[in-house]
């Protein structure tokens, strides 16, 4: 995240040109499809598609590396936890048991290993589409897009305000934290026992909250004076008009969604395993 709190990376790929609302639709469809399955083959196809789209978007890997590694670390840790806590969970899904690695209190079986592989793939499948949406959409377009897909404009604008003030509140919070630290009321190990550090943290929250409440008042005044919320609908400066490309993408994604649903109803199981 840069100073401005935006992750947007300028470019001219397919995703850059798409309307934000279309991207949100795609994102929703993709997420729902992922939720529906627990099938490595489906995730394989989706993951491949996602990676291709991500590569064509031309976002430098350097920019997404941080989020990518967080995700990898998460899935690895998550898998380790699952394997250690429920070494034979896979059996519940498949009914078979192929012991592999003895743990002492239990034995990890092949079914569980395959299960965590599937689960990890499921998490990873969600990553490319999210990255695509946040890296190719200007933050200012985000609220307009939410409004277009049917979210009331006031709620959509609340999202915009949150995006606007996250970096500022973060900076303010940090500087208050620093000034407290200098008075000996920081939250690091040096500053005393756990309880004390925790009390220090709660003390920092007070001025930050106070200033947030003050800001609520002044931003409200500013917006009232500029006529926010007086009309039934509002227009948006940011954003694009729907073009044929956008309608095409909506068509494609609806088709894919239909295909996914059909596969699911056809009994392409909630869980698939090769054993």
């Amino acid at each position: 995240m840069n100073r401005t709190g935006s992750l947007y990376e300028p470019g001219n790929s397919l995703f850059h040109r798409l309307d934000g609302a279309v991207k949100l639709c795609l994102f929703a469809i993709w997420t729902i499809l992922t939720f529906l399955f627990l099938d490595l083959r489906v995730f394989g196809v989706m993951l491949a598609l996602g990676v291709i789209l991500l590569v064509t978007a031309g976002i430098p890997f350097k920019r997404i590396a941080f989020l990518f590694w967080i995700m990898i670390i998460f899935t690895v840790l998550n898998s380790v936890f699952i394997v250690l806590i429920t070494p034979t969970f896979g059996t519940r899904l498949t009914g078979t048991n192929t012991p592999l690695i003895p743990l002492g209190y239990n034995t990890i079986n092949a079914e569980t290993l395959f299960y965590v592989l599937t689960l990890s793939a499921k998490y990873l499948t969600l990553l490319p589409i999210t990255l695509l949406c946040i890296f190719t959409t200007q933050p200012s377009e985000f609220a307009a897009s939410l409004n277009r897909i049917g979210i009331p404009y006031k709620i959509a604008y609340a999202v915009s305000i949150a995006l606007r003030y996250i970096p500022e509140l973060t900076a303010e919070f940090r500087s208050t934290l620093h000034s407290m630290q200098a008075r000996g009321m920081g939250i690091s190990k040096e500053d005393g026992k756990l309880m004390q550090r925790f009390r220090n943290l709660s003390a920092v929250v007070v001025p930050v909250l106070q200033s947030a409440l003050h800001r609520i008042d002044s931003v409200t005044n500013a917006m009232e004076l500029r006529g926010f919320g007086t009309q039934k609908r509002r227009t948006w400066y940011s954003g694009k008009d729907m073009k044929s490309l956008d309608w095409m993408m909506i068509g494609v994604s609806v088709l894919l969604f239909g295909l996914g649903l059909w596969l699911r109803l056809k009994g392409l199981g909630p869980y698939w395993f090769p054993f």
Partner: protein
Amino acid sequence: MKKSLFQLNTKTVVTIGICAALYGATGFIGVPIGPDTSLRPAIALLAIFGALFGPVVGFTAGFIGHVLTDLLTSGMVWWGWALGSALTGAFMGIIYLYKGFDPLAGLVKSKHIGFFAVYGIVGIILSLLFSWWFDITFMGEPSDKLVIQVSLASLSNIAVFVVLGIPAVLGYAKRNRKASNLSVNE
């Protein structure tokens, strides 16, 4: 002065936005208590938002704040947990509906604290149960592992709520109580 609950006036919109931003801004900070776990003040913020502005603001700010933080810091949205935050915020806001409870004007009675604690704890547990159910149903996570995660999270969230959240709301009310009979003591 309390306004009608669902009336989205400009102030409510701004409150939701700023609270969500605050939730995001403080999301990165925590007092580490063990490997990969830290006590985060975020849950206390939900308590404060709920108590000061009611369940609608609590729910929406919790949800938006959680989703944005997820997007900016992990590149993915944990929908189950985001909805959990929203639910927690809503439960924290029930106390706002009580007549005579108004921390902005310094009005908090001791029975309110009791109710607030109960709603808060019930809210934390219910929303984590919700996250648990969500992850099992939609993500296909094994329930045994989640039981451990959820109970750990419940415990730490309840601890933060009791140690940080309730005192913060009380402290805030105390601050706003009209200072009367102030005399200068030379």
